[in-house]
């Protein structure tokens, strides 16, 4: 377990101690995951299986592939993301480390951002592996900078809201089942924008058609990061 972030308020600026807390929490998760790899392997295998299922569920022949690739990818990531979020917050709850973190003399939102960064990292790593695999299986080049940007923006929006909602879901009786139910309706703008923008980059659409979707993603990400920052305290109060 990482060192508890120490706060010397008279010698260290609050922003610096906040940042250190965030880094410490992120690092704790990444280090733990590096050792066990349980979350990561679950998300990865799940994603690959979903891609496989899509192959049979939708006729991904060479023509349809163009139009549905973006959708297939984002559905896959949305479901795998739910797995990761659930697991990540459950671990905190089960090990009681959430309570430990709450006792630390650190702003609650540092916990939130720490979790967001670690969850985001897991999701991005899974995406980074799925992309080449998909490209390989379906002979499509997915490694384009525009697409990677959308993956990043979309994942941020998804994880920012998902971490907050997962924190709540894990404290309820229905736990894992509840997260997708809470998350999917409110994350629809991200999915719409991400699919449209990804599709645009894949089909080589003009920038003027893609730009509004990127703007939508940016707006969503900013608004919800701000909201989550403001309400996270209420979600971990005892």
């Amino acid at each position, binding site marked *: 377990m990482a060192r508890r972030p120490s706060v010397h308020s008279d010698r260290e600026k609050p922003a610096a101690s906040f940042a250190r807390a965030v880094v410490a929490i992120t690092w704790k998760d990444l280090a733990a995951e590096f050792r066990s790899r349980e979350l990561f392997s679950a998300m990865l295998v799940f994603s690959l299986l979903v891609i496989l299922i899509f192959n049979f569920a939708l006729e991904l022949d060479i023509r349809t592939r163009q139009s549905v690739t973006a959708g297939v990818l984002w559905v896959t990531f949305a479901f795998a993301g739910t797995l990761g979020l659930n697991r990540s917050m459950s671990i905190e709850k089960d090990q009681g480390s959430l309570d430990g973190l709450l006792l630390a003399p650190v702003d609650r939102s540092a916990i939130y951002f720490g979790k967001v960064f670690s969850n985001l990292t897991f999701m991005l790593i899974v995406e980074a592996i799925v992309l080449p695999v998909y490209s390989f299986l379906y002979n499509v080049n997915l490694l384009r900078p525009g697409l990677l940007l959308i993956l990043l923006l979309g994942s941020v929006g998804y994880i920012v*809201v998902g971490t907050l909602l997962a924190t709540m879901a894990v404290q309820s009786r229905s736990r894992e089942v509840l997260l997708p139910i809470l998350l999917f309706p409110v994350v629809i703008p991200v999915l719409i924008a991400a699919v449209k923008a990804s599709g645009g980059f894949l089909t080589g659409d003009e920038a003027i058609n893609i730009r*509004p979707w990127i703007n939508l993603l940016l707006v969503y990400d900013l608004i919800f990061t701000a909201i989550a920052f403001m309400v996270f305290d209420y979600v971990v109060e005892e």
Partner: protein
Amino acid sequence: MQAKPTSLRALDLVAIAVLIVAAYLALVYAPEEAVMGQVQRVFYFHVATAWTALLGFIAAGVAGVAYLATKDEKWDIVEIAAIEISLVFFLITIVLGSIWARPIWNTWWTWDPRLTTAAVTELIYIAYFMLRQGIEDPGRRARFGAVYTIIGAVSAPITFFAIRLFRTIHPVVIGSGDPSAQGTFAMAPGMKLAFFFALFAFTIIFVDLFWNRILMGRLAARVEQLKLNLMR
């Protein structure tokens, strides 16, 4: 035990009365629309319930913020009441919208931004109740409810704009071949009266149900408090 205030009893009667009048205006008084026929009459209740459900949606958002700010349970009660009634009204909106669409555009669903956003909001409401249902501590339940209400309240308008943007770039109504499926028609004066009266009537009905629901919420809070006390 609380007795119902007389003004609320009076409002109950007024609500029933305006509902009857609104139905009369919509079904009998308003002229038949030439292109769509009689099914167009559902439009009056469809729009009225949509508007009032939207008011409930906004009220819930405000109540959520107010609860987090004050931790006063009355805001939680207001929030539940607003969401519950908004849920019922949006359900009516969606169903009537679907029934209206079917004979006109030969599709049960048009994926138009307003209808789709209403459906998404409905799902958010259902998720809201499922969240609350899984939490036993009343304080936590209220806090989580408020947080989710705020998240839902902010995301629904963004969803609306996203779908609208989707449609400006792809204006075809998916599910029907008719690219002009938007449901506009010119309103005759008789129609206007039915339309505006329906809006008025459903606002009254909403307020009546809302007030009743708040009373019930207070009762529920007392019952729960007694249960918790007795279990100590």
